[in-house]
């Protein structure tokens, strides 16, 4: 576990990285080709971060690469439906995690996201979950809610939990 002193240092670095990320990413990455609605807001870096986090969040379920990518796509659409202030927060969080100092020093993940082991990612999630810093706890909860909501919204997640889906109403 990092010492309090290290945390303070990383905390400052984190604030700087967060600010930089916020400036760099004040606008959604992509907008739909036609129409005014952004249907997708995550960039490739954001998707790489989520593609590493989702298997750790969903460990024990047996989510393969295909369903992992589908979950990342669902998170993207969910974020696009959030109000602008929440979109900004999620994009800042993912930009922070996607940055080298953010990943290395604030998340404490040594390997680039595509190469990070599930154990390494789980350890990062656990540190943030019980962090003394509210900002990191909030980050954990955001990732928890986004990934688990995206997964359990899927019809193919229901058989494993014994849920048959809604009844037929005609």
């Amino acid at each position, binding site marked *: 576990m990092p010492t309090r002193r290290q945390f303070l240092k990383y905390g400052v670095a984190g604030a700087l990285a967060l600010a930089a990320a916020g400036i760099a990413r004040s606008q959604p990455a992509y907008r739909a080709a036609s129409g005014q609605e952004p249907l997708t807001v995550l960039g490739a870096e954001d998707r790489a971060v989520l593609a590493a986090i989702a298997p750790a969040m969903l460990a024990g379920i047996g989510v393969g690469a295909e369903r992992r990518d589908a979950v990342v796509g669902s998170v993207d659409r969910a974020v696009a439906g959030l109000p602008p202030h*929440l979109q900004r927060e999620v994009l800042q969080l993912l930009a922070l995690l996607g940055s080298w100092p953010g990943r290395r020093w604030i998340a404490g993940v040594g390997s680039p996201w595509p190469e990070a082991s599930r154990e390494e990612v789980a350890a990062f*999630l656990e540190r943030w979950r019980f962090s003394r810093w509210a900002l990191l706890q909030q980050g954990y*909860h955001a990732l928890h809610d986004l990934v688990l909501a995206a997964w*359990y919204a899927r019809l193919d997640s229901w058989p494993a939990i014994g849920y048959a889906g809604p009844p037929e109403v005609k």
Partner: protein
Amino acid sequence: MIRDPIREGLAAGWKVTDASRLERDLVLDTDVAIVGTGAGGGVTAEILTAAGLDVVMVEEGPLRSSSDFHMLEAEAYPQLYQESAARKTLDKAITILQGRCVGGSTTVNWTSSFRAPEATLAFWRERFGLGALTPGELAPWFERMEQRLAVGAWTVPPNENNAALARGAAKLGIATAAIRRNVKDCWNIGYCGMGCPTNAKQSMLVTTIPAALARGARLVCGARADRLRLHRGRVAMLECAALDPRGVHATGKRVRIRAKHYVLAAGAIGSPAVLIRSRAPDPHRTLGRRTFLHPTVISAAVMPQRVDGHAGAPQTIFSDHFLEQGPVDGPIGFKLEAPPLHPVLFGMTLQGFGEPHATLMGAFPHAQVLIALLRDGFHPESRGGAVGLRDDGSPVLGYRLTPVVWEAVRRALLAMAEIQFAAGAKSVLPVHERAQAYSSWAEARAEIGALPLEPLLTRVVSAHVMGGCGMADSPQRGVVDAGGRHFHLANVSVHDGSVFPTSLGVNPQLSIYALTARNASALAADLTRKAPPPIG
């Protein structure tokens, strides 16, 4: 084939404008502009149109109806809830469920119908000078709205999630009772929170709003009320921003409404926010203050038998035992209920991740869940939260969980676990990041006694936002008078849960209906200078 009264009404020529489709700005003139179409706005629209007044309703969310309600969380939360059901307090420690659609929270609530308790009204009379709000004064309004919205006893046996509450409590000598519901010919399906697919729930969407529209009222949905233009102590105009089809971004088109009177019914976060954005006079700093939540904590049990908490009417049994243990302003009491369980909300709510979380989810059919709703706003150290604005003008509620709240949280987690074990639970899991599934009451009692109760470790949720434009006898202690009239703006009323000076101690919909019926009737009489006809 289930009839869809909304689609039929639209086909018959109701005057409904979807602001997301506006190609140019819209200007409307009317007698009364109503902001919000939930419990307060719906009842107001029906009563004012019955009195012959011209009404324009403005709703931030979309118009959806039974044909759209597919009982899927993935559709319902983004379409029908504020902030996709991810609204949180400023410190993100409390998740807030509020509707954002035509019908407001009444379209997605769980149908629980209670009258405001006398202990609550007595506190208001004594501490806020609301002498008029006696049980005798309110009883006819409760009766009227109960009749209008088919509030009645639910005689179908409770689902197992609720039966376990009754059974466990009975073993411990704790009294429970049945919850009345606002339904007609209910199919007992259990998906009330995603919009009723059979129109059994007598929400504003299928009752008062169609009645108002049938009398010629206009409805503008997909438009967010930005601000009231003030001029010499009155409101001259309501300015609204049209939103894109998913309600995320403003399109740039504006809706301007000029009315003789303005009713705010945007809920206890939305209504104060409109007044704050409008720079409404607030000399005593009461606006947006004393906002209450019924902070709610959760206990999940695993039963040996199937529970199937997703199936059957939600919330049909309650206990007020722990509200009745002491004086109303003593240690905070709590109400016990048993909520519906659905995969997305359940999965997001349960603590942890990875294999432990997957194991918990694997027990979904056997999960039995109790919630404790804390009665905030009575204890001298429970003063609620405050609504403020972000840089972009959107509202956010700051709500500090104080030691008197945490003390009640511990009692609530203990009480729920004891009841669940008495009901036959194999294990009980308080929803808290540091908690485990405990296999006996003795173990649970010791472990819950030692849990660190802190924000972001203890899961706290709310579906009942109240206060922020509190009623009182003077502007020193409130924002509106006992009739809902704003103390400083002559042609503004507030008709929603934001007028409650404390929390209620019961699920709020029926109290909002009744108080609004009373105050809207007085407003109609005032605006028309004659007594209004009856509701319905």
